[in-house]
């Protein structure tokens, strides 16, 4: 990590110095990892990521630069937005993994739309169950089955994510047996399908509760 040009302290992020509390305008587009002063890794500890967010916002947030001139206020606002965007991406395992796939030159979600074949059958089954549940008149039955399906999906999602992160880690350390980036993208597409089904469940549950 670079040093602060004002006080020579090691920088918390290219955007701010924790030592002298100076804030800086980024000279180039920063990656989310760079914004947080982190090395590129597939796995991140959520708790330390959150702590880092709080540390950076304490240095950067426009609330703390109210007395400064327009230029500094503009930088504070811009930098805070950068940190917010980076955090939104880094805290979400699927988004983070997708970003790394593209960073490594792999396909984006719009250029690779397939998912693993064996997964397709399962997706179709879930969709069928969901369609049936939408028409379920008995609230208790609906709740029970929605909860069961939700549990299945959550386990499925956790497995998919673990697998993806393992694969990405292998890719990042250039392991010889690491899978293709397109395969990792297809796995992430599967996660998106699970997420869509989960949010569908959430909205059915909301409709039932209301």
């Amino acid at each position, binding site marked *: 990590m670079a040093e602060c040009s004002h006080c020579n302290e090691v920088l918390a992020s290219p955007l701010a110095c924790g030592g002298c509390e100076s804030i800086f305008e980024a000279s180039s587009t920063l990656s989310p990892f760079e914004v947080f002063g982190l090395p590129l890794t597939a796995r991140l500890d959520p*708790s330390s990521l959150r702590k880092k967010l*709080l540390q950076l916002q*304490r240095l950067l947030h426009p609330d703390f630069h109210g007395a400064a001139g327009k230029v500094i206020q503009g930088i504070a*606002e811009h930098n805070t*937005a950068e940190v917010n965007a980076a955090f939104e991406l880094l805290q979400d395992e699927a988004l983070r993994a997708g970003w790394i796939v593209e960073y490594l030159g792999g396909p984006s979600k719009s250029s690779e739309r397939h998912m693993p074949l064996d997964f397709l059958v399962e997706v179709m089954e879930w969709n069928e169950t969901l369609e049936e549940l939408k028409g379920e008149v008995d609230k208790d039955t609906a709740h029970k089955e929605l909860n069961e399906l939700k549990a299945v999906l959550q386990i499925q999602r956790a497995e998919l994510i673990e697998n993806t992160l393992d694969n990405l880690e292998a890719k990042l350390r250039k392991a010889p047996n690491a899978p293709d980036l397109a395969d990792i993208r297809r796995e992430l597409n599967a996660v998106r399908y699970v997420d869509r089904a989960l949010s569908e469940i959430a909205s059915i549950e909301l409709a039932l*509760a209301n």
Partner: protein
Amino acid sequence: MAFLELTVLNNEPTPIVGIDLGTTNSLVARYRDGRPEILKPPGHSGTVPSAVYFAEGEEPRVGTEARLHAIADPGNAIFSFKRFMGRGLKEVASDLSSVPFPAEENQHGVVAFNVRGTRYTPQELSARVLRQVAAVAGEAIGSHAPLTAVITVPAYFDDAQRAATRDAARLAGIEVARIINEPTAASLAYGLDLKAANEGKEGGHTIAVYDFGGGTFDVSILLIEDGVFRVLATNGDTHLGGDDLDRVLVDLALSELTEKENLLTAEDAADPTVRQALRLASEKCKMELTNNPVGELHFTFPDLEINWRRDVTREEFETLIKDVLMRTLACCRSALADADLVASDIDEVVLVGGTTRIPSVRKLVESFFGQKPHVELNPDEVVALGAAIQAHILAGGTRDILLMDVTPLSLGMETMGGATSKVILRNSPIPCQHTEGFTTYADNQSGIEFNIVQGERELAKDCRSLGQFKLTGIPPMPAGMPKVAVRFSLDANGMLTVTAKEETTGNLAEIVVEPMNSLTDEELEGMLMESFENAKSDFEASRFAGLITELGTMLQASERGLRTGSDKLDAETIDELEEAMQAARDARVLKDVGRLKEVEAIRDAFELATLPLAAVLMDSVAKSALSGKSLNDI
């Protein structure tokens, strides 16, 4: 030393205050001695009812007096105008049916109320309330310098409603340091105590703020960790409040009076004066029900020879308002879902807004979250107190607390075919920026039109359009070749700026999106000019009030000073001073602003006459401070 204190007070920079601009009442607070406090001048509650009354041929009255006139002269007293801020006529149809004053729309689609032949926008009316709030603050602080303020808005206010609030402050001559969300402000006010109780809890602790006011409902879910108040999700309804509960009782009375008892014809029932009387009777009944198991719905209307009473029990009231209350729970469920939490994950629940005084509301919140909500702070004051804390932060007073808020509604653009393409999702932390790429769909297309929308619906026509703009000057190219980058920026106030850039040529269209149904710059200028004309008399009135207060303080100080220092003054000096004091006492009962110059002269003469006394007192203070010390020690 009163005189020294006075000087110090007057030299103190005017602090940033926090203002709660409410549907029913407005309040101002400031941070002092480690705590926020509501500003209350002597003998004044500090509360300014958000109402304006236009008397025939007289200056408009703001606040309590205006509220009183709402009964006798309904068409000329305007209230609840916050519900109309930044809205078009079509959107407020249901609100209009429940208020006894007519509204129209100006050429830019801004709602305006026609009172005695003059149109007033909600922005102008809010500005009048804000000016009154500023006068209250000025009197309490003892300085009438222009104010800088943090102003609160319902969390679910969209861009147009925020812009309208900012414009109102501008019209009132108040500099807006920040616009913050009401429930977030409330969490700050409570947070000081909750923070201490939960210090060091791993992963922070979550709070839910249930904010049910006079006209709006908000719920916000926050995570507090290391002094950072981070909003995880917010939801609400800007047309759901205590007014709706009154309306339930109005409907009950109307149906019984017209159908059951035949006391009221359909025509009379539609009369604004009747409506207003019913509304006030209902409000009174609702308040009675807060403290008693039974409330009386008492409607008198001498002109129609009606004197009708009916008891309403709490149980009956609870049944009647159930649907309205269920709507608040629907908002809570959505907010929790967006925060990825369930009700039992919430560590603390905080109640805000006058409507949360209703026992059935408290019961409902308690059973929904499975815990007793916090009610330690006055639900009417907590928002202003929180705004004062944010003001303290912005003034550089502390770095221990930081607020990180979110945008309540998704922002996007209309795409081909009328669908919405979301660019910034609801509950994204602010400030934030996002850039979206666009291109042309026809060969040699020279311009692209953009319609910027806010809302969650799939079709652009179901969302609120914030504005339309056109990027022109795209050089002739085959369809799909030009690269247009549209950047959305939300600032810390939650307000939007949009810029568009054609990247092959660098053509830039910087657009500050002026939301639909908002005042244009020319309109604002015009209103500002008018207010400058009024400002002279406003200024004189507030200067006059300030002088009267100052004379009072000087009198007290002189009386106290004379008691200890008169033996060190010659008789002539004392006579002169007592003469000046009598003149000041006489001046204090003057009510005529036209005699401002005279009172100023009296004050100046008074100050001159006090100088010998001040010198004597200073001297004795210095002596007592130095007593017991030899000259060598000094």
